[in-house]
């Protein structure tokens, strides 16, 4: 067929070189997510009216489980170059985020039946929207081209705009959807303009080529022609990502949108969207904008400095304003801004110099710990409810910890994790991020990094205050009204909460596996320039040594004279 086409004499058809079979593997996780989405809609058309839709939650959760499994299966068969003519990567970094997004999406979907039964809005489309968005996040994490980044970003966002307005009877939902949509489209426009400028300067949209060409532009002294455009482009692209991850000053939509959206949807949009945006942001920053001139450094002119101040502002603003909130969803929105600040702290540390690249594993781990804690926290809010009303203020949950011990216990675990108290995942995540920042500060002698981590520490003390307030309300206040709020009987919601809590605790008590995975993800990060590749190789060797040492230590210890237990 191909040959026949080739014979027609159009020289351009010579370009029809199909990708080799192995490359199609890069599509698998995202494609499965999209297929599950369509399957869900298909199954939903045969739905018998008047019955519950729990099975849809289970179907989509199983589908997401398959995505995670596929990531696991592909883990060791990565490709060290971009596939599909430089459109996608297939590396452990992308697979890590794909699995994370799928897991978070699946867990959030398991909570949907509980919430939707309270709200009487049980529709199959909710699942489809979420699954499409997961698919977008997965492609975004794997994108190797600005075009793929943009399309996947939109594929991720547009269903989420609809999710925000899903509660059609609630006027706040409409308002949230509109705010999210207007601001989202606006920031997408800004980001696109940045992309256009980057394209203009480099003549390509491929991330690796942008990296090479930007370096060449800067080297060959063409700075006077293009540098202003480069800075403008970098900053605008960065602002687009900052909008998605809700970093100050692009955070402003977050509280309103989170308050107006359905709780499981918020759990989803505060984790999966962020995971996808962070993955693409890391790709763009470390592949395309990796030139030292663009990187800057402390008090330089690069993105590291921009992110530095974004991180500081996010931590301060998120944590201070969260204290004042009466609405738990709103409080969690501000806390997610603060968490974005902590994650940015890790990126700042890792981006300060090429040789610190491996510190990105703290970012990956923190995202994982944040994801499960946040999905769980919003899950508790959807697990509790009453016909037609939502549970979202402190007043609503007063005294529920003892009335519904399961919900209380779960909330305790998630709040402890968010506050960073051992032995939960949040503690190890924070520990790891702070360590990265302090380490970089000591090594570079830039005490600004240490100052930033001290700021992070102080703000997280403030964080403990408002997270504990939730628990104080749940355990130490009298219920404001009898039979006001009831817990759902949905088994799937319990399952989801249980899994989230188990993962949160497991990541805190046995973080080694996840740390290793995130380290492997960073070591296998594709497309970075030679200077970083050196670091990656060393990291890989280190990882191997550690694994060997662990292997050795698992062998039985030599018997001593002491009585053995």
């Amino acid at each position, binding site marked *: 067929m191909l040959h026949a086409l080739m014979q027609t004499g159009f020289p351009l058809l010579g370009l029809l070189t199909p990708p080799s079979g192995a490359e199609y593997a890069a599509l698998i996780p995202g494609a499965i997510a999209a297929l599950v989405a369509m399957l869900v809609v298909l199954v939903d058309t045969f739905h018998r009216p008047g019955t519950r839709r729990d099975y849809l939650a289970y179907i989509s959760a199983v589908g997401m489980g398959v995505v995670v499994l596929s990531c696991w299966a592909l883990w060791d068969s990565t490709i060290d170059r971009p596939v599909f003519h430089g459109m996608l990567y297939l590396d452990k970094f992308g697979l890590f985020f794909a699995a994370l997004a799928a897991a978070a999406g699946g867990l959030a979907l398991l909570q949907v039946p509980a919430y939707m039964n309270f709200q009487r809005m049980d529709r199959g489309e909710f699942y489809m929207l979420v699954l499409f968005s997961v698919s977008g996040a997965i492609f975004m994490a794997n994108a190797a081209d600005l075009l793929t980044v943009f399309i996947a970003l939109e594929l991720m966002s547009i269903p989420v705009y609809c999710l925000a307005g899903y509660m059609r009877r609630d*006027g706040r939902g409409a*308002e949230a959807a509109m*705010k999210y949509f*207007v601001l989202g489209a606006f920031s997408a*426009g*800004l980001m696109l*303009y940045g992309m256009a400028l980057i394209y*203009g300067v480099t003549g390509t*949209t491929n991330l690796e080529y942008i990296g090479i060409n930007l370096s060449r532009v800067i080297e060959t002294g063409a700075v006077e022609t293009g540098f202003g455009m480069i800075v403008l482009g970098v900053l605008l692209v960065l602002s687009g990502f900052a909008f998605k991850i809700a970093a100050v000053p692009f955070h402003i939509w977050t509280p309103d949108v989170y308050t107006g959206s359905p709780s499981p949807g918020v759990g989803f949009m505060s984790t999966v969207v962020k995971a996808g945006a962070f993955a693409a942001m890391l790709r763009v920053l470390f592949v395309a904008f990796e030139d030292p001139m663009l990187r800057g450094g402390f008090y330089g002119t690069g993105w590291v400095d921009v992110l530095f101040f974004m991180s500081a502002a996010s931590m301060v603003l998120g944590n201070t304003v969260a204290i004042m909130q009466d609405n738990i969803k709103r409080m969690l929105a501000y806390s997610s801004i603060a968490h974005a600040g902590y994650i940015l702290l890790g990126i700042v540390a890792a981006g300060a110099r090429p040789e610190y690249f491996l510190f990105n594993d703290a970012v990956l781990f923190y995202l994982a710990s944040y994801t499960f804690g946040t999905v769980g926290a919003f899950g508790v809010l959807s697990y509790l409810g009453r016909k037609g009303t939502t549970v979202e203020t402190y007043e609503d949950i007063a005294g529920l910890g003892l009335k519904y011990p399961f919900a209380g216990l779960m909330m305790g675990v998630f709040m402890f994790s968010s506050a960073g108290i051992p032995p939960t995942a949040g503690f190890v995540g924070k520990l790891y991020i702070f360590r990265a920042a302090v380490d970089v500060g000591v090594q570079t002698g830039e005490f600004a990094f240490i100052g930033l981590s001290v700021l992070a520490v102080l703000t997280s003390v403030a964080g403990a205050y408002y997270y504990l307030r939730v628990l104080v309300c749940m355990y130490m206040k009298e219920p404001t009204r009898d039979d006001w709020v009831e817990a759902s009987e949905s088994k799937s919601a319990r399952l989801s909460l249980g899994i989230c809590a188990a993962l949160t605790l497991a990541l805190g008590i046995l973080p080694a596996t996840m740390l290793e995975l995130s380290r492997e993800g960073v070591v296998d990060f594709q497309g970075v320039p030679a200077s970083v590749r050196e670091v990656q190789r060393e990291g890989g060797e280190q990882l191997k040594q550690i694994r060997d040492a662990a292997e050795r230590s698992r062998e039985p210890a030599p018997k001593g004279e002491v009585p053995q237990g």
Partner: protein
Amino acid sequence: MMFEPTLFHYLTLAAMTFCIGVFGVLVRRNAITLFMCIELMLNSVNLTFITFSKYRVDMDGHIFSFFVMAVAAAEAAVGLAIILHVFRHKRSVNVDEANRLKL
């Protein structure tokens, strides 16, 4: 020579319409007009892409703006649906009247 359009002219034109679009988003209260201003921004981006595309003799910019158009179509569908949805609740499409969620 002065009137011959060069790269700079095209880019500045795109920047100008882009900024007009941004200004419209910031001040127009009518959600539909606001949304049209976003479309205007996207068009300016397309113009930038196509200008660069010609200067680089590279069709990637065309492809990019083609996809931007597709995305704009999708956004238009969703955005107008959202505006309808808001209108049903508020009987108004003015964005400043939708401010129950704040503080």
